[in-house]
């Protein structure tokens, strides 16, 4: 290594410092998970112990929260993908500028408006006396308002709304890389639109689909605000659970242990996605 290069290494110091700072915060939080909360206070003390972890793995309730979060995030990811694929195709391919602009604008607005604003907007729409229920009752579709909010349904609706722009924008790039002529070749050889979509378009998009899915999934896993506001206390995802441990039960070590377990599980899932992406790339796109 010559002098010039060694000199450049100094440029990484600010980045290393900030990353180091962030990770040491994680590390410190993680370290507390091996101790006990001091009674009645915010402190941490006692001997080094695996108790907190044993409590998590010994309790169905604790495991259920984690399992439910993993499962619901997966379901939300799939729903987002199903909606996002046609949207991305239209945004990337529609010959009408107007159609593209409207779709992009709608998604961008979702990005721009804050989470709290959006959560309350959904309450207004989905509440018992909300717009949707009023309309349905008025039209005679239902007799009494149905519960659309303060349950998993409301949380899922608002979360899909939150996740969709990320999924769509990730996919638009993949669709744009897909040459139209390949699909035309399929049609020319006798494939219907439907067959072309399943035999050519989807396989060639699969790598992009996996990338979009892993991004969507990691965002869904870390949901906090929407389950908090639209869950009405009945819906709890891991982030909410950790929050409660911290600020309601003041049990910092236990919250830290839950975080650690969840972090590791999330990493495993994301690594799984990365592996899947490599596999798909190898099998489908050569």
């Amino acid at each position, binding site marked *: 290594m010559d002098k010039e290069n060694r000199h450049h290494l100094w440029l990484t110091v600010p980045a290393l410092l900030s990353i180091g700072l962030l990770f040491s915060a994680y590390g410190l939080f993680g370290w507390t998970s091996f101790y006990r909360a001091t009674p009645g206070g915010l402190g941490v003390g006692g001997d080094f112990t695996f108790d907190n972890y044993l409590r998590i793995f010994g309790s169905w309730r604790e495991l259920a929260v984690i399992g439910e979060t993993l499962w619901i995030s997966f379901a939300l990811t799939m729903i987002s993908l199903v909606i996002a694929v046609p949207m991305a195709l239209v945004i990337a391919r529609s010959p009408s500028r107007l159609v593209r602009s409207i779709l992009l604008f709608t998604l961008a607005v979702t990005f721009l408006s804050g989470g709290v604003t959006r959560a309350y907007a959904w309450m207004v729409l989905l509440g018992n006396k909300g717009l949707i229920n009023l309309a349905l009752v008025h039209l005679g579709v239902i007799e009494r308002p149905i519960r659309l909010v303060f349950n998993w349904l409301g949380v899922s609706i608002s979360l899909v709304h939150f996740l969709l722009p990320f999924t769509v924008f990730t996919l638009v790039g993949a669709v744009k890389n897909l*040459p139209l002529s390949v699909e035309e*070749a399929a049609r020319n050889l006798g*494939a*219907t639109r439907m*067959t072309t979509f399943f035999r050519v378009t989807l396989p060639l998009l699969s790598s992009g689909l996996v990338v979009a899915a892993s991004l969507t999934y990691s965002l869904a896993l870390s949901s906090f605000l929407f389950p908090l506001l639209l869950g009405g206390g009945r819906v709890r995802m891991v982030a909410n659970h950790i929050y409660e441990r911290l600020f309601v039960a003041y049990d910092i070590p236990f919250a830290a242990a839950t975080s650690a377990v969840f972090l590791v599980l999330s990493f495993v899932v994301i690594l799984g996605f990365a592996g899947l992406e490599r596999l798909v790339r190898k099998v489908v796109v*050569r």
Partner: protein
Amino acid sequence: MDKIQGSSLSLRRLDKYYDRFHVIRDVSLDVPPGSLLTLLGPSGCGKTTVLRMIAGFVASTSGEILVDGRDIAGLQPEARDTGMVFQNYALFPHMTAADNVAFGLRMRRLSKAEIVERVRDALDMVKLGALAGRYPSQLSGGQQQRVALARALVVRPKLLLLDEPLGALDRNLRDEMQAELRNLQRSLGITTVVVTHDQDEALYLSDWIAVLKEGRIEQFGQPLDIYDRPASQFVSRFMGIANLLPARVVGSVGSRVEIAMGGVRVAGWHPEGLAAGRDVQIAVRPTHVEVAAAIDPRDGFVGTVSAVAELGEKVVYQVDAAGTRFEAHASRMRSVRRHEPGATVKVVLDPDHTIVLER
């Protein structure tokens, strides 16, 4: 592969508007079964649009596309029974060469045994039998094109459609593929439409050529017709006629027209003859312009050689005469007298190849 029963192709008054842009204007032509039609023109002339209209990827605003007398203009692409080779080949990257070729047969729900046999035949036909298991990314450009050709032909389509088939290949490969394509098309007897901007390619491949300009057929005819008897300045220029010069009609007998240019009278050709006094343009290929000695007894324009360039097999002269500049090509191989720059010479035009164009 067996010989294909060729289909006739007729375009009747095809029109296409994109919003207010009239991109294809009243295109009509007929080609007999088994022949090769080339749509020739510069980029933006609408040739690819016409091809895509035949394939069904672009909807025509009005007009008919008749294959064996049946109008296919309203059908979906998959129902048209055409085989298209795309400019970038558009092979399925996630399938092997064999699977690419088999795709159309699978869509037609043929039996497994028949698919295997026909795929093998088709790949053998394009000399790629040994590479059946390769993926497109493992094939060279020329090999990819062969796969695309086999994929289009294996379904025995009514029409073979080729979009700039040789455009992406380097020169040697292009000459080789050109000959191969022509032989294959002839031996299969499949009616074929080729899009190209290369007039040499068009002349080599075609039975019929339609020269397009701004969405309209500028001239439709057999290759040598178009080469020898261009019908407009545009076609003349496009077919490489470098001398396009103004003149005036003195009189005509049949298709032989006498014209005056810079005080000198020469003869030219126009299909119907033209009335005296009309301002016209003459088109003469440089190979039909002879640079003769000044004392030559024939009718011609006395002038001065302004430049001489020796290019491989030909000598290119620039001669200033009759108030304009002529380009003349002489063979370098024959031992004709060389004229030096500044020399006084006589420019003699071949009357049979001096085309008189209306202005």
